[in-house]
């Protein structure tokens, strides 16, 4: 292993014990415990207000439709009575009532259509607005604050939950109309004859009892079905992970049969689910018609005594059904409850406050190499609710390489994240060339500081786009920065294997077969291409074999020119300030200075060689061995 003998012009600084300035206790920004239902309701209310005329129109059309639906049976009954009484001689009143029926029917069709369009467009607009807000906030809060939600959970919040929450305004508008129908129908029954309403009300407890039977849809057969399904999926996942063994042994068909073994059981549970559901549905299906028959029977008796007309009976039969249609109301209420619950999950994300930004640019100090002096003053930061960095003071001189070492869990990665403002410090400041990172324009900040991670996540359409992700985007994609990207890839020892991909740099990212080491090198290349002043490497060479790591380190230290077709296009990485999280002694040894992180503070800053004399420091790297190959 060769040592980089310090960056040009930077002598090793003497070891000095640091006495951190204690940061003022400040309210933890952006860490509200969550959102309560009031926030969720406010969110829905705001969305409803943003679509006010649509919401109002939907409310009006739904209410009008409910009214028309209530009037129609009465009108039908009245018309029928007049027609029957008329006995074919043709009376004007019958004609008028017939016209009323026709108008009501037409109104119902038109209102139905309006309801469909208004509900659909209102939902789609509200959902889209909620999604935009959510995504915008998510991208602004930074990774640490978003970390409390798992990735899949966030996707669910932006897709399914947003869609459910998006139905909030339309459910509110419809739920009122849904109340009108059963209540109005019951009133109409009472108006026809009080006894009809009484029969209906007497039958209702039966309805409630039977509905309860319906809800007892034996949840355990659903559970068993899902368990079996999970078992099958588990077998499949195992087999997929062992694809090479299966391919080599030529046992694909046998493994297929083995994976499918639980299928018969799944089928049996599935059948049972249908049986249970069939019974429940049948019970529910007799309920409303039985009520209706009871009402008709009473109506018939009234009819035979001349207290009710035929038209009245027909209307009563219909009103009995409408009054029993509490199901619609329950459905709308369920939708509203679901929407409010979903909105609460959105409000939780929106309650996280975004990271502060400013408008300043990074100053250039003439006489410098162009690299930036990075300074952390009394930085406090926590992870997972635990204060990890208590008061970190650290100066990374412009153009120097500083390694950060410490026990696992000492907060090395958090320090790196704070230093490049991936994470906002809870207290203290981080300065680049004397300017607080919080006051920098976001674009200026990102062009100044680049990150490379242990497990980079690449994004962008092609491999080239993934490498150019840190550069200003343009319609032509990565080719706008072609030279820079290729040179950076060369410096990260990535150019060679990228060219072995099916379409080289234009290979779609999702189709690029990449190993962990290759992804890591692409992550390095991305950071090399992006950063102008400071490079922060968080264990970014851990998956590289010794030879590749050496080459990358040489490029990083400026002792090796970039390889590849654009070798002339020299990437002068040495002109940048580098902060390197190190797990291996060799990495620390190559840096100009080592910052020893211990107990949430910087315990010492000194060249590795000097610190190595302390047994406690040596213990960090595993029993004094200089290399943990």
């Amino acid at each position, binding site marked *: 292993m060769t040592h980089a003998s310090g960056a040009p012009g930077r002598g090793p600084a003497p070891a000095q014990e640091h006495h951190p300035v204690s940061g003022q206790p400040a309210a933890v920004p952006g860490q509200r415990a969550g959102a309560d239902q009031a926030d969720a309701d406010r969110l829905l209310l705001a969305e409803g207000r943003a679509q006010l005329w649509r919401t109002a129109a939907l409310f009006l059309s739904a209410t009008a439709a409910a009214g028309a639906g209530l009037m129609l049976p009465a009108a*039908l009954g009245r018309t029928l009575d007049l027609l029957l009484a*008329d006995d074919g001689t043709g009376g004007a009143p019958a004609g008028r009532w017939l016209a009323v*029926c026709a108008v009501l029917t037409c109104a119902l069709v038109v209102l139905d*259509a309006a309801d469909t*369009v208004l509900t*659909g467009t209102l939902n789609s*607009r509200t959902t*889209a607005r909620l999604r935009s807000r959510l*995504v915008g906030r998510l991208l*602004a809060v930074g*990774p640490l604050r*978003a970390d409390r939600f798992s990735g899949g959970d966030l*996707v669910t919040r*932006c897709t399914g939950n947003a869609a459910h929450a998006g*139905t909030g305004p339309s459910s509110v508008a419809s739920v009122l109309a849904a109340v009108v129908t059963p209540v109005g129908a019951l009133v109409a029954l009472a108006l026809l004859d009080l006894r009809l309403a009484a029969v209906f009300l007497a039958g209702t407890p039966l309805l409630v009892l039977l509905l309860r039977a319906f809800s007892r849809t034996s949840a355990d057969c659903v559970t068993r079905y899902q368990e079996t399904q999970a078992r*099958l999926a588990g077998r*499949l996942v195992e*087999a*997929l992970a062992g*694809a*090479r*063994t*299966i*391919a080599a042994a*030529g*046992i694909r068909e*046998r*493994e297929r049969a*083995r*994976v499918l073994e639980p*299928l018969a059981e799944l089928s049996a549970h599935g059948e049972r689910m*249908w049986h249970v559901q*069939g019974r429940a*549905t049948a019970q529910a299906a007799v309920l409303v018609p039985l009520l209706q*028959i009871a009402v*008709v029977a009473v109506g*018939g008796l009234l009819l*035979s005594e001349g207290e009710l007309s035929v038209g009245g009976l027909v209307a009563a*039969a219909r009103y009995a059904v409408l009054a029993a249609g509490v199901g619609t109301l329950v459905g709308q209420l369920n939708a509203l409850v679901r929407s409010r619950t979903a909105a609460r999950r959105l409000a939780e994300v929106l309650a996280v406050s975004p990271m502060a930004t400013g408008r300043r640019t990074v100053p250039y100090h003439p006489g410098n190499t162009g690299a930036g002096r990075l300074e952390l003053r009394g930085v406090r930061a926590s992870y997972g609710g635990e204060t990890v960095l208590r008061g970190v003071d650290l100066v990374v001189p412009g153009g120097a390489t500083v390694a950060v070492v410490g026990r696992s869990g000492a907060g090395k990665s958090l320090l790196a994240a704070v230093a490049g403002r*991936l994470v906002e410090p809870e207290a203290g400041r981080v300065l680049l060339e004397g300017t607080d990172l919080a006051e920098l324009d*976001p674009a200026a*900040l990102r062009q100044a500081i680049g*990150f490379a991670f242990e497990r980079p996540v*690449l994004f962008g359409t092609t491999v080239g786009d993934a490498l150019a992700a*840190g550069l200003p985007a343009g319609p032509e994609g990565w080719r706008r920065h072609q030279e820079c990207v290729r040179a950076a890839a060369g410096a990260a020892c990535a150019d*060679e*294997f990228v060219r*072995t991909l*099916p379409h080289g740099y234009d290979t779609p990212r999702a189709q690029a*077969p990449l*190993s*962990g080491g*290759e992804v890591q090198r692409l992550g390095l290349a*991305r*950071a090399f291409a992006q950063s102008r002043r400071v490079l922060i490497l968080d264990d970014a060479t851990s998956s590289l*074999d*010794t*030879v590749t790591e*050496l080459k990358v380190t040489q490029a990083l230290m400026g002792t090796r020119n970039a390889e590849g077709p654009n070798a002339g296009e020299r990437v002068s990485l040495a002109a940048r300030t580098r902060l390197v999280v190190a797990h291996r002694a060799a990495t620390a040894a190559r840096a100009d200075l080592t910052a020893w992180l211990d107990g949430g503070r910087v315990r010492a800053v000194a060249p590795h060689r000097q610190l190595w004399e302390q047994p406690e420091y040596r213990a960090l790297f595993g029993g004094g061995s200089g290399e943990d*190959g």
Partner: protein
Amino acid sequence: MAETTGATGAAGTGAAEARSEPGEARAQARAAGRHPAPAQRGPARAGLRFLLRRPRVLVALAGWSVLEAAHTFALGFALARALDDGFLAGRPALGLAWLSAAACGLLVGAWGTARVYRQVAALTEPLRDELVRRVVGRGLYDAVAAVGVPGDAGQDASGTGAVSRLTHQVEIARDSFAGLVMVSRSFVFTLAGAVLGLFALAPLLLVVVVPPLAAGLAVFAGTLRALARRQRDFLVADEELARELGTAVRALRDVTACGAQAAVRGSVERRVTAERRAADALARWGVARALALGLGGRLPVVLLLVLAPWLLRHGVSAGALAGALTYLTQALLPALQSLVHGLGGAGARLAVVIGRLREGAPRECAATAPMTPPLPLPRETTASGQGGPGVPALELRGVTFAYGPAAAPVLSGLDLTVPADGRLAVVGPSGAGKSTLALLAAGLLRPSAGEIRLYGAPVVPEQRPDPRGMAGRRVLIPQESYVFTGTVRENLCCDTAPPDSALPDSALLGAFEAVGAGALLRRLGGLEAVVDPVALSAGERQQLAFARAYLSPAPLAVLDEAGSRLDPAAEELAESAFARRGGALVVIAHRISSALRADRVLVLDGPRTRCGTHAELLECSPLYRDLVAGWAPPSRV
């Protein structure tokens, strides 16, 4: 989203075709190549075939549905009779009797409903079984075909995709198929019951009811295709949005670090807008649905009243009119409503999901297609596959491999010979093609150029068990060891050649001891103990894989960093077990110590690739010198 409409027609219920089509062209197990999607058969025709293969279920379904139809019939007819013969005729007792008859019809109908569900189960459960079989088959097929992809990128993708298909998409297909069957069946039989009832009351009533109903259905049928397209667009837009969001969320840290928030937000917003547009288009097409419902369900009521004087003149009774109104408002309108609401949404969902599940379905190729000429095993090959002394175990002649026609080759013009008792170690930087070489030697990748021979016979990629084929001549332990939930015995025997020839317990126990995994076996609790892969450490899984491969009769063993998670001493123990076993050994080295144990070493380093003994390589390969030095204990800090 409100319930939305659209489908590929009532018959377009697109169920999956049960059997995979045999005889289709064989897809090559290409490295990064995707096999082309097979021509899509009409899902409607496939669905029809699926139904027609189950005539007994269909008959039973129809039979039980008739009971439901009888209930519909009774509802209007009994009311008409109760009015005409009972309440209006001054015989309320008879009226009540007719109503009781309707109530009885109701109960019988409910019994039919419960039975109908069983028949629906008999249709949907087999469909689900077929889909599950297909998903599992395809998942394994894809994974096996993608083994050439280095790292775990390809496998990860296919793994999560397959699980989502298995748990999510198959369930959507199951639910929407059942919904389609229920809705269309219910409409048909309600319609039959109501039409029959109207006919029984007074045939003239049909003249009033049928034309508008037919017009409404025609409007619905006419717009169904357009609705289905909108519904599909919406589902696709929704999926794309979810995918884009997934990428953005996964990459959140990196997006922030790159300052690419604006670009990422822009691309997510584009998907959000596309999804909103699709939802709006779908909602606007809902007007057609309302129109169909108005025409077919509501208009007949008004028509009935308009024509009432004429009907009354032609002898239609008051009770019959009331009965007809009951049929229209209580039976036909709700049935039509669930048809126009249910058919579209469920149909389009089913069509989309079935399309997803069908695309790239596995071809049952290896079993039928004449993939390769019969293997000309060399005459001197003995039962164990051991070649004669002169025949090398592995021979590569000018082997070149690239991941695509445009890609730079990973291996280029490689010549290599491993004698029948040889022990070769392969070293080199990551990405130099070590695993590629292992896969080529095992016949899992096909070289772009050159020839590979195992015991004198050319290597051919294969997909099916053939004890006399590749599996009998070489065994590969890949980087990721395969351990599944099952007994130790099942795990051990899963790839020993013939499935029926059980190995004696002593051999199984001996294998564990030989590779140094005796302690693991005791800890697990013997051969019949059930292994939970998650509970094992990576090293323990590797030990199990070692024991399994040790039992293979194949004379050549290829270990691809197979002991990377074991400590050096345990790795040496396992490797030496294979050396003692006899035959040839190729070790893709994770540690340089493996190279020191081999009699020859291959250093893969692009154009500077060298093969020789340890001493020779120290002379001629600077990379090898570096590697050896890198692993040696440091002399200074």
